[in-house]
């Protein structure tokens, strides 16, 4: 792998790392497997792309994308809490509905950002130029989101979110409406995912309705890789591990795509298969280990 490809992979890891922090919040903290993300990632991309082409400031576009993501998460949470639809199904419903909505927002399956001023064009204004500007920008944003999440989960409200995922009966007895907490948590998670999607679109110069396919699996893979390599103890460690997991995952994917056996080589379309195998492997390893070590 070339130096240039390595930087590209790290950059992807940071960009999608923001999404992984969102997935960590629902999947690990709230214990709410949320597939909405496959729809809210392109939603963030679509909203920010349309906002940019309509002349909004890149920062405002990111804000709009996050709000849209938050709303999408709220819809899933409402379906689950108030209408008592199973969380997985509720999130799948929102996800497929978002497919149509995203096409409506973009008035087509994609929007090009060629010649439109994006976050990356803001960097030279701040005095940062060259090929370091993108990784620096995404790094700063990814770290800010991670720090925000660590801070949030240490607040009174954050503790209530943690408790809702751990023991809903306990936290209800402490006077907390778990429905509100789930709406807040799933909303916040999808706001992160939409932010990630918006940045991905700005980075690659286009928003596409299909760019969200496999997001949840990539997110889970990153969380699991992070936990395996950097440990699970505590919230601070968990959030940092999720971000690092995202980087490792993207680098691993880049390496896998570079493998060649004679005439055989992986193509980008094999990515989902590789990721699925990776997640299955990571999930099964602890169980197999237990089985084999038993006398």
């Amino acid at each position: 792998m070339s130096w240039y490809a390595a930087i590209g992979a790290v950059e992807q890891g940071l960009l999608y790392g923001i999404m992984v922090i969102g997935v960590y919040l629902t999947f690990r903290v709230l214990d709410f497997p949320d597939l909405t993300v496959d729809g809210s990632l392109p939603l963030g991309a679509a909203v920010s792309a349309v906002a940019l082409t309509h002349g909004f400031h890149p920062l405002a576009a990111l804000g709009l994308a996050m709000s849209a993501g938050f709303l999408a998460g709220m819809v899933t949470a409402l379906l689950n809490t108030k209408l008592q639809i199973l969380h997985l199904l509720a999130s799948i419903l929102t996800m497929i509905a978002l497919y149509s909505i995203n096409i409506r927002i973009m008035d087509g399956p994609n929007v090009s950002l060629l010649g439109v001023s994006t976050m990356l064009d803001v960097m030279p204004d701040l005095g940062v130029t060259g090929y370091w500007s993108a990784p620096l920008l995404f790094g700063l944003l990814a770290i800010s989101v991670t720090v925000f999440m660590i801070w949030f989960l240490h607040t009174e409200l954050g503790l209530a979110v943690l408790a809702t995922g751990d023991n809903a009966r306990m936290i209800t007895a402490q006077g907390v409406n778990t429905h509100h907490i789930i709406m807040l948590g799933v909303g916040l998670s999808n706001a992160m995912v939409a932010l990630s999607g918006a940045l991905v679109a700005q980075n690659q110069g286009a928003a596409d309705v299909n760019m969200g396919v496999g997001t949840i699996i990539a997110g889970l893979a990153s969380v699991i890789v992070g936990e395996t390599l950097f440990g699970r103890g505590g919230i601070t460690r968990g959030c940092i591990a999720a971000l690092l997991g995202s980087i490792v995952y993207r680098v691993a994917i880049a390496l896998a795509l570079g493998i060649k056996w004679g005439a055989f080589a992986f193509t980008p379309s094999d990515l989902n298969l590789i990721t699925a195998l990776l997640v299955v492997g990571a999930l099964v390893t602890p169980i197999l280990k237990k089985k084999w070590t038993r006398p």
Partner: protein
Amino acid sequence: MIRIEGYTQYFHRGGVNEIRALEQVDLHLAKGDFVTLIGSNGAGKSTLLNGLAGVHRADEGQMWIGGRNVTDWPEHRRAAYIGRVFQDPLVGTCASLSIEQNMALSFKRGQGRGLSLGVKQQDRGFFREQLQILGLGLEDRLKASVGLLSGGQRQALTMVMATLIEPEVLLLDEHTAALDPKTARQILELTGQIVAIKQLTTMMVTHNMAQALAYGNRLVMLHQGGIILDVSGEEKKNLTVEDLLAQFYTAQGEAFASDRALLC
């Protein structure tokens, strides 16, 4: 203080499995009353407690806590005035959080939760002080994960957490039933101690008649969804297990043999 009037509770209403768990129950508790609730399985003891806590919505009747009509309040809203300890020691605390995080959660019971730090430095002293009452050494392990504690320790912690903010009523639903006899005795003694110190209005469900007699100033016996005995003060002090069994048998009519083993 606590007023329950005409409380009727069905389960699976309208279905083939319809059960009337409670029928027209009236119960008034004065401030500081410590009521022990007894009765056989299915008598409606837990239903009564859960009904007051708001876990079930009453099919008929009204409930007041400290003058507030809470009949239509959801569980989390009533929680502002209620401290609860459950039968299962795992229900009252969060295993993945630390002792101090759990305590911080219940130290905000019934209040709004904002974006200030969850566990505040100035509260740690108070938490330690409260844990010292237990005599389990938990005050030196504030940062330990609750998942590392034994069932008895967790139940003791839940007991302290339920009373961190003084509740208007403390509901104990067979909170020693899942513990080994020695731990159960300790938790029960602790219960008596905490209730006495804080002079809490308390309802305690138990299967053990001796416990029901030893604790509290009032005893209520439920049978098939209704109150069949309600004694307090001197009358309760003079009550014996034999009296209770006699009462129970009269109510039940026939076929006690199986219950005798259960209740003694």
